[in-house]
């Protein structure tokens, strides 16, 4: 029986690592997309929401308003 050296056609360890890196890259890409959409939506909705009375700054008192009140 002829001797046939056991030479793997493909380095399995490196392949697994490469798959894992590919997977991580894909995950990161999807996560970034979701994050951007989420953050943009949150910013947009926060702009659309009416300002709370608690955070609304008090209106400055003008001399005209004071005179009118008097």
């Amino acid at each position: 029986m002829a001797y046939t050296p056991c030479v793997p056609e493909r380095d399995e360890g490196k392949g697994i690592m490469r798959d894992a890196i590919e997977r991580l890259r894909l995950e990161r890409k999807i996560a970034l997309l979701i994050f951007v959409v989420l953050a943009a939506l949150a910013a947009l909705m926060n702009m659309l929401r009416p300002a709370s009375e608690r955070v609304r700054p008090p209106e400055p008192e003008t001399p005209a308003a004071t005179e009118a009140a008097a």
Partner: protein
Amino acid sequence: MKPRLESLAQLLLLLCAFLAPWGVYEQVPGVGLPVSDCLRLLLILLFLAHVPVSRTLRVPFEFAWPIALPAIAGPLLYLGIELVASREYSLPIPMLVWLLETSRAIPAGLLTFLAVVHFARSRELIVQCLRLWCLSTACVAVLSIGASLGAVVPTAFSASSGAVVAGQRSLSSGGREFVCALVAAVYFASFYERTLRRRALFVACAALLAAGLAALLLPSVPRIASWRLPDAVSHTWVQVICIGLVYWLMARVAAKVEVNRREGEPGIHVLLLILLGLKAVAHVAGIGRPCAGLQLGLIAAYALPDSKEPSRVSGWHRLAVLPFLLLIAFNIGYVHPGIVTDARSYAALAPHLIYDGHVQRVESRMEFFAQRYPAERQTHFWLGHVELARECPYRAACEFAEAVKPPEDLRLILPPPTAEERDEFLAKLRDHCSARPEPASCYAHEQALLAAGKQRQALNLLEMRGTTSPPRTPSNVRQRVHTVAAGLVVELLRAREIEKDLQAWDLDRLLGLLEVWGCVVQRAPETVPRRLLPLACVARHGPHTQEVLVVGALGGAHARRATSSRIEGVSLATGQWSGLEPAGSGGWRTTLSWPVGEGETPLATVHIDVDGDIEVDLADALESGDAPDAPAVRLWLP
């Protein structure tokens, strides 16, 4: 020790999932501390103990850094800013205060997330958790349906629309839980469960959740047009960074689940993505937190590659749910009066709200409970405080009289006001009446004293207040006039029990008392037959009623009309009865006019025919106008 710790932690996860939708019902009775918070703390402690013992942290780096960054850098940064700003290099007390204040929110949620991801290594356990959460949310939905039918006291409600929910602390959180659990139940029934029995179980769950959601949303349907997004809240830059990190964490978890789904792994990936999406949308719309530590942790753990171990929670371990079921059953029936986080304890916040000037809020809350539970006494007691804050002593005395009535139903939500609380109210009412421009003319304090059973005290005050009026009636009709005047005082004070005491009073003293109270006492026109006299007309307005009372020598009449809603506007002015005028049919009439809008509108007309028959017409002009607080009284003498 390690396997035991792990199985205990997994049992805690199951219990947390079971308790998640119960909200108010899972609080320690009398303390108000949620049991699930204690379990989460235990889980975090187990996590902190397990990591050094096992020398492994099963949380991947991409999940750990968004938590480690704010946990380490946040306090350090805050400390640095504080030190630079204050230039006082001393003990960082503000930082400790900040940490304590936020300890229930972000750090606790993130630590729970870490602990859950660390321990929930079994997909079987995660599915068990989701199933249990779905089932217990369906039970909460049943209670919510009961609450909308009036069988269960709601734990959150909208006084304006009448929407209610049981268990949850707010309507929005109830709606969110029901929607998420409905999606999960439909998914389990349609795509995941293999046996017919389980499918049937989740179909039933879905039906209950849909019914609970409908019961929650239907009362709000007419108000959809006026719905608006919740008010924007300004965030500090620290909060913005924290929210950004949580968004990134959610996005990372969602991406991991999505990649698993694309690779064709069997499981509930689609369901997890939908749940994450719902949570994210709710937060973006401002009606929810970003994502709770427990749920996000379970979803993240499901997506990890090493989460395929079998569950360590065996069948008999699930019996641990039983004591919590007993606690929930107890809390459904029991309301501790002092827990401010429990909306059923409606009077707990009332003194603070009134002190801060939120009278309208207290009124709508009390009115909501008063309509659903008419036997409640505390609602009327606090409505009395509301009326007093609005400077309406007569309406306050009316509400107080309702509050001190002996309870007809023994199953009250809150106990009736105590003797100390009643005395405190009476003292407040007395001070209010004394501070009026004409203190003697206000008899609301005496009215409240009589309602509280303090008859002797009330009579002493009446005797002190009454002045003797000059004699105006012929001696042959004095007895008749005395009877009518005493009856009038009794009706005004709403106290039949002092009728005998008043019989001993002199007529001129009685008339003097009525005049001091602002009643118009005068001779009737000569054309009015003497046998009809004396005649007294009283018009008074309660929070829900318009009432006209006629007391005469030949008998009386009483007309009462309930308004469709509480009369909110109150005027401090008093209405006036017109003089007796001849009516077309040969009788006489008098009219009570009240300014409504720009003109004067008759509120009530009393017709007296020649035979002495009395007819009262009550107008509905007060449905949208202001009502006088003080009664309008006129007495015609022979």
